[in-house]
């Protein structure tokens, strides 16, 4: 029982980064921008939050957890938004190919994260010495009363606020896209920017805002990983391939953020299942690690057999828009 509980709890913990990434990417893709730079942006968001907290704690002799939280949150949002801005300027204003820019941004972002991770590690006095305990404690603070309830408390209330924020964000985005005017306008841009343009929607402004806010949301996934999951430290490439899984989840969630919630938990669970599965040897463990990917493929095949209009990617995804182009 307690093992199952630990498993579920950690499955959720593993999923949250991916959920942020997927939510951000959905918002971005709804504007017709396929941002393959999300994996890099998540690194950028993570390291920026960590650096801000690190320097804050270093400069202030007696750091305050809440101030650290605000500073690192802002830094993370800003830097990942900056990643989104680079992407936007190149693909929206300069109409560069989205794949190239995205992949280059991922290279850039991962390098950015690892480079600055290494730099502050040096400043901190060596590996494993980066620690922003005070700030991290704010990220990891749980509701004292609720989290003590047996089982339910552990399963539902034992997480820091970013976990709940990720879910709220996904739900809010779903509402935004479905029930608001701006959401409708945004969706129409992703479908057909020339139609949206003719309807008087400011296409590039929406694309910019959606891409940049999408990047900021995705960056929170990196921040979550660094602050809540790792408790405020860094290792190179520690974030791994979660950014790619986030992009995968977008397709699996059929571009609906609420679907990404359960999808991310599923991913998270499959990701760590091999640790909990009894009776595996080293070779079979490696096969077990294939599960998240194989399950994704299987789900994908099954969903693709039902080709509903509504389940398709935004029709203009990946294409630059120029009003005077035929």
């Amino acid at each position: 029982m307690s093992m199952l509980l630990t498993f579920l709890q950690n499955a959720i913990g593993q999923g949250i980064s991916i959920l942020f990434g997927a939510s951000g990417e959905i918002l971005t893709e709804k504007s017709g921008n396929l941002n393959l730079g999300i994996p890099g942006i998540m690194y950028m968001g993570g390291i920026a939050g960590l650096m801000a907290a690190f320097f804050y704690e270093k400069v202030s002799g007696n750091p305050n957890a809440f101030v650290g939280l605000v500073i690192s949150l802002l830094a993370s949002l800003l830097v990942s938004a900056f990643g989104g801005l680079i992407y936007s300027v190149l693909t929206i204003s300069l109409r560069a190919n989205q794949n190239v820019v995205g992949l280059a941004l991922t290279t850039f972002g991962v390098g950015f994260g690892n480079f600055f991770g290494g730099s502050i590690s040096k400043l901190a006095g060596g590996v494993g010495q980066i620690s922003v305990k005070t700030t991290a404690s704010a990220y990891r603070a749980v509701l004292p009363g609720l989290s003590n309830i047996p089982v339910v408390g552990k399963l539902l209330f034992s997480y820091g606020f970013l976990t709940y924020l990720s879910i709220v964000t996904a739900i809010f985005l779903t509402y935004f896209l479905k029930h608001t005017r701006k959401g409708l306008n945004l969706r129409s841009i992703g479908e057909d920017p020339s139609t949206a343009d003719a309807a008087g929607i400011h296409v590039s402004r929406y694309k910019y805002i959606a891409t940049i806010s999408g990047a900021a949301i995705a960056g929170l996934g990196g921040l979550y990983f660094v602050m809540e999951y790792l408790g405020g430290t860094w290792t190179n490439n520690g974030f791994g391939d979660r950014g790619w899984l986030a992009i995968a989840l977008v397709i699996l969630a059929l571009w609906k953020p609420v679907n990404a919630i359960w999808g991310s938990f599923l991913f998270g669970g499959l990701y760590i299942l091999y640790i909990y599965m009894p009776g595996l040897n080293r070779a079979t463990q490696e096969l077990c690690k294939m599960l998240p990917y194989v399950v994704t493929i299987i789900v994908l095949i099954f969903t693709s057999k039902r080709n509903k209009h509504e389940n398709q990617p935004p029709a203009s995804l990946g294409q630059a828009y120029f009003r005077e182009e035929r």
Partner: protein
Amino acid sequence: GCGSSNKGGNADNTPAAPSGTETDSEAIPEGSAADIKVGIIYIGDENEGYTAAHMEGIKVMATSLGLSSDQVIEKTHIGEDESAYDAIVDLAEQGCNIVFANSFGHEDYMIQAAQEFTDVQFAHATGFQAASSGLPNMHNYFTAVYESRYVSGVVAGLKLNDMITKGEITAEEAKMGYVGAYPYAEVVSGFTAFYLGAKSVCPSVTMEVQYTNSWADMTAENEVAKQLIANGAKLISQHADTTGAPTAAEDAKVPVVGYNVDMTLVAPNTALTSATINWGPYYTYAVKSVIDGTAIAADWSKGYVDGAVAISPINESVAAEGTADKVAEVEAALKAGTLKVFDTSTFTVNGSTLEELIASNADYEKYSANVSDGYFHESEVISSPAFGIIIDGITEK
């Protein structure tokens, strides 16, 4: 005898430096340290504990031998493929007199380079092929880190005793969890030493080992530690390179013994100490040998005696009372040679002693060269660890 006359064609740009062979040594004047060049390739960088420890060792060497910064060329993130060969050759061509490599998978590529650059010395950490390769300029090195792991085990055992005394756990519940990288002799040897150290003070202790199948994977280490804790581990230790396990232990408020680096910043409330390696003594020894023109041992593995291993400062707020004294006592015994970590009278395998098994079981015959005088001679035949036996009290998952 070394092939000193057999200069590689590419070594022409080598400054008039010693080629690090015995025969040349007399001809080299004192103070030639100014002309020496040292190259090293690392699997990772300063962000990863294992490489960071090597970098520290190189720094110690450079300081103690008075090398300037442009006499040491470091290359980080060198993979275990052709890029290792490219990097090693590049260092040799840049005029390095000695080249080090710090990852197991570099060894094959280093041997390749050693065959081509016969007047350059090559030293490889954790490898095992130097002696058997027959190349006079190829060397292996490692440390007797099992000694420091033993000592850190003692710290852990004392903590468990403390918890038993305080009634937090029963003696039967004294189970440790160990996050291992691979089921590899280096790891097995390490956790056995750690377990024996704990057992030497807490006889009822047991240990569960789970592998991450990676040398450095923060998430996997974190998750494996959580799983071990959920499965009843009351104390965590690790042989993997990141802070993943201490993070998990700190969360679960479970005491933890780290590896490579001091974990008190990551786990201020639970970190006890870490088993660490000082690579400085070897690097100093090897480079000094090149300067002096003396031979470098084909295999080198030293422990407490040479200051090559240690434990990081004990976190007094977490450790049991009296730990420091006990540690000092054990360390002294190790230095004096009166205490042997793999004393065969302290453990059994499937209920039998190691000597009995070697005599009776063909699978264990290969250890016959290692076992004599009542203990297992770890890292003595070759520098890399050889103890690959799961002893009673330890379970692998």
